[in-house]
């Protein structure tokens, strides 16, 4: 199990989502991707996409207006 971090701070929609999609493709099952974002609409669409794909998703508010979306690839 590997852990990857994707720095999307300062990036607006839909860049965090596209970056997360691309990164997830290169990862193996049970790897974990942590997407760092500070754009509130990415906090909605990144988890929404990942859940639709069936992955395990957790959101952590790490600071004012700053989140980490933690995605575990399940398939």
């Amino acid at each position, binding site marked *: 199990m590997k852990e990857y971090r994707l720095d999307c*701070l*300062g990036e607006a929609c*839909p*860049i965090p989502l596209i970056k997360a999609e691309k990164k997830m493709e290169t990862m193996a099952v049970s790897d974990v991707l942590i997407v760092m974002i*500070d*754009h509130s609409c990415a906090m909605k669409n990144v988890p929404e996409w990942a859940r639709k794909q069936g992955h395990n998703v957790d959101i952590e508010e790490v600071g*004012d*207006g700053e989140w980490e979306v933690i995605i575990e690839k399940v398939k």
Partner: protein
Amino acid sequence: MKQFFLRISENEIYQRLFKNPFTYVGGAVMLAMLNTLTLAFTGNGWGVTGAFGYWGAWTLKLVGIDVSTWASFASESAQKTLAGGFLADGVSVRNLGIILGALLATLLASQFKFKKIKSVRQVVAAVIGGLLMGYGARLAGGCNVGALFSATASLSVSGWVFAACLLVGGYIGSKLLVKFFM
């Protein structure tokens, strides 16, 4: 004091009203109700970018450039708005309210943040995009609020034409975005 704010931050009503984003349906219903009120009280649907033309005109006037003779300000109502100034123009004041309201909302959610600029490329794209959107909105006679949302709500065909063109522009824009930013 800290204890008090910690308790508020965990309060369910606070979270639903101020912290978590509204659902799409919830937002849509509120927009529809507010636009109905706007139409009923002002006689016009909600619009945003029309006022930006006046903001530009007033700014240019400050540095000594008079644009009141331009064709785009030729109508009687445009002349009146130009002469009346910022505070007499309801649309301008409402736009200011939207900006202040957005600030208030982000502060209430404790999500205010100065975001760092990632690259020169981001700045260039933002400036070009902003200019294109502003110019396009003036040519189209409105933006996605006035020319789309308010127009379709008033059963105007122009709103649907705008929507079709918006989709084409959005498609091209997303291709450019992937090309230059990924």
